[in-house]
């Protein structure tokens, strides 16, 4: 098999070939490193590639397998990791200037789990600074481009991970989702992205934006691949007390069940408030077709109303910045990160902190820190943070009501397809609206998946979002798998087969 053929395989197929030793992890890892070299000069999905680290891991996986050792399912399958996750001994920037030199002394729990499951880490992917943004244009290291159209954004904040998977630079990637940072880029790049139930995956080592909303999750090209990765990273972690003390839901079995077309008897609800005005025609068309496919598989469809969703976005933009303003306080030049002396005046702790934060943070980060600081201030707390928490409860109640009638909810993942670079940079509110359908999910702590729903009238991918009750992540994979199988059959193959070939380059790309 040629190197190009190898990178076109799904992770599940790679795992099978590795297990039967028809291919080696070193071969597979080299193929992906070569692909990165070819296309990342254009896509810029990676902030840093780690060829030595990845190949060393691949070699030991191959050696252990050759020695007859029974390895975990995904052992030897390479992966990309969003640069918001701490990697021991490997620079972790969060897409920010302020952490350009930070080398963590420890691994995030999910990164440790990747190592234990023997997945070679190809590199760290680009992101909006501290995961704040919906286009990856807020990275201090330049934007990632959409593999479908390099004049357009790949979504954000996890545009790097989604683009890496969509451009066949990696079969799998880790992302983090606070308001849609896994699902929205998945929608915009024609890939699969999952935000697990809050607490389903450890946050230890995930550099926090908004602790009560953040969740680590899988990025992949198929529903089954996402499930395989979900199983690796999920589960209780005593180091994260908000993680659920429960076994990982049977997501792989659910995905297989769905892929076989078995969703009979499941009830799907269409959220009336997530669609209609403000949504692109082609997005709505593909959504309707996806719905028809599910109905054709024997699912019952009904409309449900979630009246509080209209307050979800404003509530999110109070809760998220409030927590972020506190979480980002630690970047104060005292212990790690860059340190900047004030241009003039006395050099004191206060002036160094101020100068460093002024120089180290980008505008979007500063905007959110200011919003959050204001919302938490004495005299404003009740009106802003307090009211937002009440809305959060109402949103949760809307979902609770919905679950009385349906098993899953479905909506378009985003109102539009990928937008041109620079289009929304000067209009934060237009950027924030991108996440209108994904945000309620984080506020409620429930799981959500985005699967490719086809191409809109502009030839760009559309995402279909499926939601399930807390801890019922398995439903996402069952329904997502069924939808994927039905659509692949309709299209005669995966959506990514229709993506234009990327111009390739031989220059070293990606690395900082």
């Amino acid at each position: 098999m040629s190197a190009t053929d190898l990178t076109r395989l799904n992770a599940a197929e790679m795992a099978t070939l590795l297990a039967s030793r028809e291919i080696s992890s070193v071969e597979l890892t080299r193929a992906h490193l070569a692909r990165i070299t070819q296309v990342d000069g254009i896509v810029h999905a990676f902030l840093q590639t780690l060829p030595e680290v990845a190949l060393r891991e691949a070699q030991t996986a191959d050696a252990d397998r050759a020695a007859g050792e029974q390895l975990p399912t995904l052992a030897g399958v390479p992966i990309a990791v969003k640069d918001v996750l701490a990697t021991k001994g490997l620079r972790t920037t969060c897409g920010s200037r302020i952490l350009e030199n930070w080398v963590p002394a420890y691994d995030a729990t999910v990164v440790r789990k990747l190592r234990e499951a023997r997945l070679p880490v190809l590199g760290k992917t680009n992101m909006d600074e501290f995961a704040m943004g919906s286009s990856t244009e807020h990275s201090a290291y330049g934007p990632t481009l959409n593999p479908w159209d390099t004049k357009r954004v790949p979504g954000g904040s996890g545009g790097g991970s989604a683009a890496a998977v969509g451009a066949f630079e990696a079969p799998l990637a880790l992302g983090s989702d606070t308001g849609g940072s896994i699902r929205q880029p998945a929608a915009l790049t024609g890939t699969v992205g999952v935000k697990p139930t809050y607490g389903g995956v450890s946050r230890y080592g995930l550099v926090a934006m908004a602790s009560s909303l953040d969740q680590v999750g899988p990025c992949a090209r198929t529903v089954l691949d996402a499930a395989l990765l979900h199983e690796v990273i999920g589960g209780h972690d005593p180091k994260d007390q908000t993680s659920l003390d429960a076994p990982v839901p049977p997501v792989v079995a659910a995905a297989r069940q769905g892929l076989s077309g078995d969703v009979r008897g499941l009830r799907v609800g269409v959220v009336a408030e997530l669609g209609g005005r403000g949504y692109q025609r082609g997005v709505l068309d593909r959504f309707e077709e996806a719905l028809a496919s599910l109905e054709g598989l024997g699912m019952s469809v009904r409309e449900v109303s979630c009246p509080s969703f209209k307050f979800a976005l404003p509530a999110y933009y109070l809760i998220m910045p409030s927590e972020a303003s506190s979480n980002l306080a630690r970047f104060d030049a005292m212990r790690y990160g860059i340190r900047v002396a004030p241009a003039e005046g006395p050099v004191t702790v206060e002036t160094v902190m101020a100068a460093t934060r002024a120089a180290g943070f980008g505008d979007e980060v500063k905007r959110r820190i200011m919003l959050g600081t204001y919302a938490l201030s004495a005299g404003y707390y009740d009106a802003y943070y307090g009211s937002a928490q009440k809305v959060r409860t109402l949103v949760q109640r809307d979902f609770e009501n919905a679950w009385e009638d349906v098993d899953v909810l479905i909506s378009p993942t985003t109102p539009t397809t990928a937008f041109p670079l620079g289009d929304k940079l000067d209009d934060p509110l237009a950027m924030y609206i991108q996440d209108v359908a994904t945000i309620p999910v984080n506020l409620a702590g429930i799981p959500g998946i985005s699967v490719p729903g086809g191409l809109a009238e502009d030839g760009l991918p559309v995402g279909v979002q499926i939601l399930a009750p807390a801890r019922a992540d398995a439903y996402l994979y069952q329904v997502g798998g069924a939808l994927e199988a039905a659509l692949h059959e309709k299209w005669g193959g995966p959506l990514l087969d229709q993506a234009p070939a990327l111009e390739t380059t031989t220059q070293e790309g990606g690395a900082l």
Partner: protein
Amino acid sequence: MNVSDLAPFDQAIAEFDPVMGIEVHVELNTRTKMFCSCVTAFGAPPNSQVCPVCLGLPGAMPAVNHQAVASAIRLGLALNCRIAERCTFARKNYFYPDVSKDYQISQYEDPIDRDGFLDVELADGTVFRVAIERAHMEEDAAKNTHVGSASGRIQGADYSLVDYNRGGVPLIEIVTKPIEGAGARAGEVARAYVAAIRELVIALGISDARMDQGSLRADVNLSLRPRVADPVAQSAVPFGKRSETKNVNSLRAIEKSVRHEIRRQAALLAAGLPVTQETRHWHEDSESTSPGRSKEQAEDYRYFPEPDLLPIEPSRAWVEELRLTLPELPAARRSRLQAEWGFTDLEMRDAVNAGALDLIGASVVAGASPAGARKWWMGELARTANERGVELAQLPVAPADIASLERLIASGRISDKLARQVLEGVLAGEGPPEDVVAARGLAVVSDDAVLLAAIDQALAAQPDVAQKIRDGKVAAAGAIVGAVMKATRGQADAARVRELILKQLG
């Protein structure tokens, strides 16, 4: 007017009524920190007991120390508090290098312990009830060392060093309700309250409570309001502006700093000047306070619920389980011992005030009689401790020595008078009482033949006295006893000598 002017204390109290609020920070002696598994041992090399969590590294998350929660609940029970069925942690946000995350994880709206009280006994036996507002859990800040300034303060320092070993050590902050009605005894009440808290946490075994090492720290808020005659009307008078005195590192200093603040604020108010609401630092050397940061421009800490931690919900069963682990509390122990030992109130109070209670108790356990133990510790030994300027417990005398001393007296081997010499020997480091008796040859002469010889000699030397005794003037025997004691260098039992004299002269 000069800000250093102080009003005379009596005049200050005559004109103003002091109101206090005391915050005591108790560092728990758990093996590990509040939110990570770093050890808490005092005195390790700087930054040797740290990890990603207590260094606040990006991505690191706190995990609550179960043992610290148990300590907080036990303290709450001992302080007669309500133990919350559900309580949360909150973030207190402020930028300073001694908090590694630039926020401190504390409790804000719903502390674990609430609405309790502690009965505090003053030196004269008066019991003063201090109402407890709350006790909550939090993490300690790191220790800053300012280098290059004369005073060790940040002003004028060349640079500062931060030791994060202390960062994240579990703390409980105990906050009183306003303490009213203490009047002239405000300083005494403050001191007795902190002493009682200290005694309590030591009895509970939850803290070393070393004020000199900072494992128990007290901040006293104090304000004055105009004095009115009627006590009911007095409590209706609104509180004045308060100062908060920090850096008070001993019980003695607490009392002094309160008296100082009363005098300082009274002088300002009497002169028609306002008291500034501020933090003040106590200076042990000059026995005065100086202003720190002003609370008028107090920081807005932007408290909000800590999203990285789940609420703590101690089950009632666990709380009751912890209640069973409470030791006998200091006040109850004192009443029990007083009854057992048969001490009067005054004797008991003196023993407590002298710090002799545990020593007497240990002596009794070693075999001494309560009265005997009290006599020695509160008499001879208290005097010596006073002369040497040390605490009783620091004297080189063990409770077992007191029991031995008593046994020697009871067996007749030494007299009460000789016992004092024996004790002198023990204090001089000559070993336990038996060794001192042997080495100094202090045993009582109990051989009647030796004594009779000495008596005969004395009678012969004083024939007139001998005649008086024969005539029935028994009291005259004292002179002969004295002579015999002198001849035996005090090593005779005077009572036995008297007996023998009377027998001899029939």
